[in-house]
């Protein structure tokens, strides 16, 4: 630890109705609302922010190419630390790590991590992927739907190597839906069975529609500062115990091993080593579930079960409400919301659970230590944060 201990002191997200922001807004408006709400929770205001962290696909090409610069102008602030690190949906876990480093060493006093997307309202989502230039000249011409096709290639190989079944993946979607049914803010709350998941239209085999995350709007913000600044905050500060990040590829053919998530193995190991905790110490896990296979491979890679044993691990209700391993307790990207980059919502849910402020039906009791893991790109990057409360 450096001179100052970094803590999370505020989180906020933007309410959705049927997957769209309840109050219509541009990605800039959404981010401004979330920033204001998260800072208010911390007893701070925008004028206190000297470190701005964001990642997103809004305004690209255009003003979004320099997202922190555009956002600072829009918010009327002049941060002296800009971090637009974009390693995909896991970027926000990386932002927490970078903000922690900056706060520790006195280079940042108040860090605002913020995200906003109106992809559902704007109908800007498509599967067509990236221009066929540079490294993508070898993948885009093949018409692999992006990013689901890459995850499908991994799922197919995982099934081949380890005998993982479509039913095992379906259990993950069903558990997420059960959590979502307890969360009034979740987008999809109606009951769903394993058979429903298996009968859903195939998108890219072996993955079907209900193996895939939702397409929604969304916005969120996380505020960090040094612990000595947090005394005015009304809610329990959340400590950053450990973090790690890694990336192995972006073109899916360059993934080192399609049936194991190397980036998560690397990131998780670093986070556990830094935090000095073991798997048994983790009370709550929030994992990026872009697709059912993502959850399964991440659980294996982080060491919660052995490689190849994820299918058995997620069965029998273990990860569903009431199970021994509370996972993705807001309903996840599969059933809560997925606005393009989901990583910030993992952090928000973990913080709310640790503060004991979610609905009683889905509140996990006595969460002292939580692990959050984001995955970005096509199983490309991983970033882990281990958080705790006193």
């Amino acid at each position, binding site marked *: 630890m450096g001179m100052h201990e970094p803590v999370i002191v505020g989180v906020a997200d933007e309410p959705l109705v049927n997957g769209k922001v309840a109050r219509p807004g541009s990605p800039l408006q959404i981010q401004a609302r979330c920033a204001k709400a998260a800072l208010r929770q911390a007893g701070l205001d925008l004028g206190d922010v000297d470190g701005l962290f964001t990642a997103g696909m809004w305004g690209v090409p255009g003003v979004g190419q320099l997202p922190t610069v555009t956002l600072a102008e829009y918010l009327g602030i002049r941060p002296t630390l800009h971090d637009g690190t974009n390693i995909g949906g896991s970027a926000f876990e990386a932002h927490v790590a970078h903000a922690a480093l900056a706060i520790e060493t006195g280079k940042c006093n108040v860090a605002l991590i913020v995200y906003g997307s109106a992809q559902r309202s704007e109908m800007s989502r498509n*599967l067509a992927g990236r221009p066929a230039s540079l490294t993508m*000249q070898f993948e885009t011409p093949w*018409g692999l739907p992006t990013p689901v*096709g890459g995850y499908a290639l991994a799922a197919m190989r995982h099934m081949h190597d380890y005998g993982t079944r479509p039913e095992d993946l379906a259990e993950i979607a069903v558990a997420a839906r059960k959590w979502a049914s307890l969360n009034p803010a979740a987008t999809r709350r109606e009951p769903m069975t394993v058979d429903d998941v298996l009968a859903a239209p195939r998108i*890219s*085999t072996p993955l079907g529609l209900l193996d895939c995350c939702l397409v929604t709007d969304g916005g969120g913000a996380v505020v960090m500062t040094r612990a000595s600044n947090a005394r005015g905050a009304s809610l329990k500060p959340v400590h950053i115990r450990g973090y790690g990040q890694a990336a192995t590829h972006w073109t899916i*053919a360059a993934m080192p091993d399609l049936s194991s998530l190397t980036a998560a193995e690397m990131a998780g190991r670093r986070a556990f080593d830094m935090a000095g905790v073991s798997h048994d110490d983790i009370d709550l896990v929030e994992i990026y579930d872009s697709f059912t296979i993502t959850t399964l491979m991440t659980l294996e890679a982080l060491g919660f079960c052995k490689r190849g044993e994820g299918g058995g691990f997620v069965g029998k209700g273990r990860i569903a409400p009431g199970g021994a391993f509370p996972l993705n307790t807001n309903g996840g990207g599969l059933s809560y919301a997925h606005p393009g980059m989901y990583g910030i919502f993992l952090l928000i849910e973990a913080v709310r659970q640790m503060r004991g402020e979610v609905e009683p039906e889905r509140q996990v009791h006595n969460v002292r230590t939580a692990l959050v893991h984001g995955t970005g790109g096509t199983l490309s990057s991983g970033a882990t944060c281990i958080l705790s409360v006193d």
Partner: protein
Amino acid sequence: MKPSPIADPGTEPYWEALKQRRILLKRCRSCEKPHFYPRELCPHCYSDDLDWVEASGKGTVYSYTVVHRPAGPAYADDVPYTVAVIELAEGPRMMSWITGDDEVRIGAHVKATFVTVGDIVLPMFEPVSG
């Protein structure tokens, strides 16, 4: 219109060779390992001493997926189509399509076939017995 690969000085020889039905790989003269896609430095030992070698066109299916929801309207007439990662006999992996009506399986032996699409040639793969 399907998106056509946008070649650059580092990849032009690869796309040109395909027009003669040849698959070229970059190979490192230092560690002797080939790699794909072609790079300026060897991704294994970081040497800049590389040359081009011709691949045999033989390989195996490392993984595949049958696409039912196409990547945009340009592929709508093709569904379902099989996108695969092929492990070439020389070691590197590349994305491609598997053609033909045979059932695909991981580990199956395949060989290259060359398909003209617009003004480029793409290397696709078809199953071979044994």
